[in-house]
């Protein structure tokens, strides 16, 4: 749209990927588990295998939820940037199409949160 500024704007995209020291930002949100009020943000190397996200990164933030240990990872439904997708666990985030500031949501069928409250 139109730029309404007396002298325009300086070109300062504050969160360009180059500013993250080789990492890219990835957001991960667990649907139907609103005990976590928001998706978590992680700075991750794009070369990290998707499996690394699942087994090394996600437990650090999600493990305290009693449902986390019960997850059957073969039945998890993944949504990447609004589209259903099936990640290849051995391929990198990048090769799975996970880009800078991608949002990954996951649903865990059968797990409905604390006492079935979607928390």
């Amino acid at each position, binding site marked *: 749209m139109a730029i309404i500024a007396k002298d325009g704007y300086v070109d300062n*995209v504050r969160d360009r990927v180059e500013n993250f020291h080789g990492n890219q930002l990835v957001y991960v949100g667990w649907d139907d588990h609103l*005990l976590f009020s928001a998706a*978590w*943000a992680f700075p991750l190397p794009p070369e990290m295998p998707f499996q690394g996200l699942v087994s090394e990164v996600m437990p650090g933030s999600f493990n*305290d939820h009693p449902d986390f240990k019960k997850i059957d990872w073969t039945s998890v439904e993944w949504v990447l940037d609004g589209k259903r997708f099936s990640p290849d666990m051995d391929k990198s985030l990048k090769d799975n199409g996970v880009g800078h500031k991608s949002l990954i949501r996951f649903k865990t069928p059968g797990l409905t949160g604390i006492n079935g409250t979607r928390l």
Partner: protein
Amino acid sequence: MPAKKLNLRKRYELLTRGMGWETTYQKMDDVFPYDSFEGIKITDWDKWEDPFRLTMDSYWKFQAEKEKKLYAVIDSFAQNNGQTNLACASYLSAIKLFITGVTPLEYGAHRGFAHLGRHFRGDGARIACQMQAIDELRHAQTQVHTISHYNKHFSGLHDPFHQFDRVWYLSVPKSFVEDAMSSGPFEFITSISFAFEYVLTNLLFVPFMSGAAYNGDMATVTFGFSAQSDESRHMTLGLEIIKFMLEQHEDNLPIIQRWMDKHFWRAYRLLALVAAMQDYMLTNSPMSWKEAWDVYFVENGGALFEDLSRYGLKMPKYHELATAESDHISHQVWSVFCSLGNATGFHTFLPTEEKMDWLSEKYPDTFDKYYRPRFEYWAEQKKAGTFEYQKGLPQLCQVCQIPMVFTEVQTDPMQISYRVTEHGGDKYHFCSDGCKDIFEFEPEKYVQAWLPVHQIYQGNCGGPTLPEVLDWYKFKPEDSGDYIGSKDYQRWQEWKGADKKVKQA
């Protein structure tokens, strides 16, 4: 023979009309370079009428009287250990949020109005803005002076201005006021004077000031009285400027409508922090957020916009969503503070049984169904000694900068509301259509947003670990965490004995 004394009206006219002139050595556009690029057309600045016609001498006199009274009360409050009359020391979380989140807004408003007081072409409008600039500075100062008494006895009040520029949740008010300050003068005044001070100000001041009265905080109540007459003048100015712009040229309407839509939404999002304060931080809440929203926005705001409809101005976009959200946002924001309470500059605490019953009564459609379960779950964990703060940094909205905690209240209140857009090859995430629209109209502005979570990951906030970041915020270890067991709590116990209001939590 001495000159005849002029009447007030004449003096006001001389002050606000005689001081300006059409420049000849320099072009008017060079002398006033800021008041035309936004597209607002003013054909006759003399049509500007300050509804109060306040002259400088009466302004000084009036303010000096109020100062005298305020400082007399502050002195007596200190001498009589007024802090011991609070309902509970946990109430001070509200005051900590106020001094770190609201007082710097007053200072930002001071800077903005000082700028307008130089750069509006009309001398009447300039004078009104100069007076408001002084008011806002006075508010910031008197708030600091009033609340400094608590700083002698309690944690978390020691460095509000430093923290305003750095702390993750304080970027919400900071980005709000800096959005307005970095706009042109007409947008600034629409944002601050109209959207904030006219349409929404009661939702800020009533909770804090009546909240103070309900919780024995006479210092803050006195400040509130001292500011009240200024605020009503500011509100009148806000309405006056909107009408003035709308009457000056029909081309101004769509611009003002867009600003109204934008700054209503931005100010409303900022008030989500106030909603949490009102429903949860106050030991005794005079009214719920939802009740306040119904009275001050739905009823009063509705009447205001009906009045303005003769100019063609419509209710701000997404106001229906804001009303639907009034059943939810206080609970959602307090939940995120409780779950990340090791990184807040105020104490968090779970609602007591008594408080939860009050919330059930005030929010019959939502509290028991969606929100009570999480507080009860955390309370069980605390009882069992297994409660842990959550480990991670949340995704933030690119515009309002609040963690993305808001949900699809109209369709599925347990589903987070995710919105995204692309610009320049990068993705940008939003909590709502309101925030997304604001970004998409001016992406060049909001790609520059200083998002605290991203700044931590870029290495700009003291270090990668939580203690390093908190140190960089100048939070002391005793500032954060649960109220129960805190230094504030211990001190309060020493003074008052059993602390009924929060012992259950």
